[in-house]
């Protein structure tokens, strides 16, 4: 164990004495993240990612237009982009993962609502997205609650308006009487809707306000990209040491060959942490993430990031040469980065790719971290995923050790 520790220290010294690889592992993901966030218009605290709601209005009534109008109001429009589509197009697009949700306002909805008959809006959400559909659902529920209150207070007046729109004039009542009725009703409930000036001090701890920007959704992927680059450099160490002859010295020494691989694995952990720290400092500052989450996030990355090293190491030892190993690693790494959620957050991906992302090694590291950073769940919710990843990483690295031992002693 002592020699494994000494080897890890030696490996870290080597990396610091030749820091080009580490600097690349830090700068490239930062640059890509910055470019992607800039292109997508995602700033730090600005809620720049908006849910895309496809709406099919089969009713085309005063009430249904009211819903669409409400969804187009300033504050809601900042969060939800509404696009009117016909029924078939809406269904097809949401099935293709294009859009966050598809709302169908059925024919007769407005009339039924005014008559307080049972009626339902149909909402289909995109299962590959987690945040946007939730936003849409909550917004619609709020709108429906508001509609219910409106109906209770101004039900009769709303019926009159709806009927008058059908006939293009107010029927059987003068405009002044109509206005007077509304004013009277508002006065009657003024005490309820305009409460007295009593202030209530809210001493409930406020939940952390995490604005879910595109940059925040990208951030875990950027960190894992850095871990991937660091792991790639570390995984080629097998060939470097083999070519230099230092691996031969190790095999000739009284130390077990597996300890070489364990040392490499622990080095990958440290290296992941080292490249992650500057990116995390920049990201936490830029995205205004609470620093309380800093060390748990770092711990998660350091413990789970080496799964990437394990995968790449296995590729390297299976390859017939360093050159072949490098080529195969690159061929594997970049698609994994694309699909696994480092170049694009899974929230922006078509459903089937987002599903694949869940099964990639980097996706396994990214998604729990994203859930933690966006406040979807706490640290325990993230770390519950850790053991599976660590066991897989250890098994892969031991497999790499076994194969490389057989190669070395062939």
């Amino acid at each position, binding site marked *: 164990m*002592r*020699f494994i520790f*000494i*080897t890890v220290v*030696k490996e870290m*010294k*080597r990396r610091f*004495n*030749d820091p080009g690889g580490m600097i690349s592992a830090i700068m490239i993901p930062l640059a890509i993240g910055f470019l992607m966030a800039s292109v997508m218009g995602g700033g730090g605290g600005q809620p720049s990612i908006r849910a895309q709601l496809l709406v099919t209005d089969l009713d085309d009534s005063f009430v249904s237009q009211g819903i669409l109008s409400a969804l187009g109001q300033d504050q809601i429009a900042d969060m939800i982009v509404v696009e009117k589509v016909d029924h078939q197009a809406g269904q097809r697009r949401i099935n293709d993962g294009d859009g966050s949700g598809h709302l169908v306002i059925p024919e007769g909805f407005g009339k039924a609502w005014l008559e307080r008959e049972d009626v339902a809006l149909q909402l289909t959400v995109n299962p590959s997205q987690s945040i946007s559909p939730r936003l849409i659902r909550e917004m619609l529920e709020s709108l429906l609650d508001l509609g219910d209150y409106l109906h209770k207070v101004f039900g009769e007046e709303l019926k009159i308006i709806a009927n008058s729109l059908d006939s293009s004039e107010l029927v059987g009542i003068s405009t002044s009487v109509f206005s007077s009725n509304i004013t009277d009703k508002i006065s009657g409930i003024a005490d309820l809707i305009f409460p007295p000036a009593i202030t209530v001090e809210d001493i409930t701890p406020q939940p952390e306000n995490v604005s879910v920007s595109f940059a925040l959704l990208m951030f875990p992927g950027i960190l894992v990209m850095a871990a991937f680059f660091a792991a790639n450099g570390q995984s080629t160490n097998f060939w470097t040491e083999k*070519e*230099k*002859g*230092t691996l*031969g*010295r*190790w*095999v*000739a*020494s*009284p*130390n077990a060959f597996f300890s070489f691989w364990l040392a490499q694995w622990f080095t990958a952990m440290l290296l992941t942490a080292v490249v992650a720290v500057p990116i995390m400092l920049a990201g936490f500052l830029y995205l205004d993430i609470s620093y309380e989450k800093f060390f748990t996030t770092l711990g998660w990355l350091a413990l789970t990031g080496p799964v990437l090293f394990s995968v790449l190491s296995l590729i390297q030892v299976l390859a017939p040469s360093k050159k072949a190993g490098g080529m195969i690693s690159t061929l594997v790494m970049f698609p994994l980065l694309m699909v696994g959620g480092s170049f694009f957050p899974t929230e922006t991906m078509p459903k089937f790719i987002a599903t694949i992302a869940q099964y990639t090694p980097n996706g396994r590291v990214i998604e729990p971290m994203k859930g933690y950073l966006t406040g979807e769940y706490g640290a325990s919710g993230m770390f519950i995923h850790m053991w599976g990843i660590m066991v897989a990483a250890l098994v892969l690295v031991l497999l790499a050790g076994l194969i490389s031992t057989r190669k*070395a*002693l*062939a």
Partner: protein
Amino acid sequence: MIEVRDLQKSYGDLVAVNRVSFSAGAGTVFGLLGPNGAGKSTTISCLSGLLKPTAGTIRVGGFDLTGEAVKAKSSLGIVPQELAIYEDLSARDNLAYWGAAYGLKGDRLKQRVDHVLNRIGLMDRAGDLPKQYSGGMKRRLNFGCGLVHEPAILLLDEPTVGVDPQSRERLFDLVREEKAKGTCVLYTTHYMEEAEKLCDELAIIDHGKIIAGGTLDELRAEFGGNDIIRLTGSFEPSSVEPVIAELNAGILSLTPEVLMITISEGARVLPAVLQAISATGADIRDTRLSEPNLESLFLKLTGKELRA
């Protein structure tokens, strides 16, 4: 200290080392001499545990390399042919790391590192990265990494390849110092003069087989006290051969450009030899007379020159 019995290493049908046996004791330098591809490095790789022998037994320091690998390996120091050093770690860190690999720690490790840095002449550059070193300095560091834990047995695989004369002499001194300390040194080389300078015992290896072995004197005795005459120029082999037979000389090598013969009392008969060869129409441009050496022995045994 080293006992190798019937060592064999095959790669499919290719037999790289074929039933090689030898032994070397404490305080001796044992040389494995042979051309490139003869099987020297494969033999030394088997001895250092880098390759698994196909057959045969290896005992180092009294321990079986297969059954008691950890104990056996602990007594070995390795100086591979390639520069097995970390170029992105200082010389001091390299030595400290390989010392720790063999269990050295604390003050003892520090003392050994300082001692070896002095011995290999790198103390004043101890903190520099080897990528800033000359080739000779890297070779010395490579050597030092094998010495740092004071091994009882030192395996040197062509340690002077690509080394400048000054560094080469320094490495020879290191080998002699190790020998004087009682270390058993196994030295592979294809340079005859190195083997002649350093080795107490030799085994000549070719095509994976040991074709001759013993001390330098024992090997020279293969020539029965004859001298070697080497002529360069242009020769007609079919005309020269009968003349050599008449002179009671033995042919080591005969090509249209080179003629090497063994002959008794070479200095005395040289004028007669030159006259007889010239009479065949040969154009002799250079003549050398020497005592038998490893090169001529190798030529005698294999019919080819060692450096070829």
